[in-house]
């Protein structure tokens, strides 16, 4: 692996499609979605546009540790606001930068309208880099 790998577009990672919920969705419903799909992160949308992310970290640190009632709490109350996002054509280096510097494990990808169209995880990137070695 060399630096040219890092200049490949993120779409080379075959990012998976994100699962979305709205801000008003009860946390209970969002948890069931995460459990059912066995994933660690949902994209939160408002009018189709990305406004936040609901991650495993939000669930354990805010919902479970805070003993919140998951049926009364909405996703909008516990989600991570204004997430860092990238585009499918951006270089992998930017995703790695966001993950390393910002400490994120998932980066949502959006289209020009601001709608989430992909999700790239730290595991996707590591898998790609290591396979490439």
């Amino acid at each position, binding site marked *: 692996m*060399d630096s040219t790998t*890092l200049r490949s577009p993120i779409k080379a990672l075959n990012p998976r499609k994100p699962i979305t919920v709205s801000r008003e969705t009860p946390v209970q419903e969002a948890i069931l979605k995460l*459990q059912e799909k066995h994933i660690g992160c949902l994209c939160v949308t408002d009018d189709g546009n990305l406004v936040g992310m609901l991650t*495993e970290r939000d669930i*354990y640190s805010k919902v479970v*540790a805070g003993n919140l009632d*998951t049926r009364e709490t909405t996703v909008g109350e516990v989600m991570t606001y204004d997430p860092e996002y990238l585009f499918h054509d951006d270089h992998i280096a930017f995703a790695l930068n966001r*993950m390393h510097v910002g400490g994120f494990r998932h980066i949502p990808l959006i289209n020009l309208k601001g709608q989430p169209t992909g999700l790239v995880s*730290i595991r996707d990137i590591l898998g790609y880099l290591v396979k490439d070695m």
Partner: protein
Amino acid sequence: MVYVDSDQFNDELQIMKELMDDGQIALSDSSLKKSIESLHLKKAVCIDSGTSMQQCVETMAARQFGCLLVVDNGKLSGIFTERDVLMKIAGSDLNLNDVVIDDFMSKDPAHLTGSDTIESALRMMGKGGYRHIAVVDEAGAPLAVLSIRDIVSYIVEFFPQDVLNLPPHPIRVGTKNPYGG
């Protein structure tokens, strides 16, 4: 002591830059043969077997660390991660004061010692789908946690120019920020 004049030094820098641009300085297989103790591993957050789930979740939230190592008689007996919180506890009607970590942890987890290689850790993470792996000493006592993030940081160190020295936003030809401005 050898003094290098600045022209010579600049030449060296130029040669290094060219090598890097050509991709000749790169992360090679040998970089992954290093031992995991050469990484800056995080000290493990340990919890005694039999601790209430409520206390465990509070500890995770307070330490901002998504992985606990469970210790029984000084030895690693289990691992409990934020994925376990999500999959086994979140959304359930359990009273967390009434249940203990032993009922929810992964028992006898895969682990490594400090002398194992980064390559073997990567293989273990890939195969088992783990994001955290316990690192133990010869006696089986937990020392540290190796996370997928530690490996990413190690890789990033090889490419500071490419990953750390970036403009705040990618330059996107022919596009504009959908949020205006």
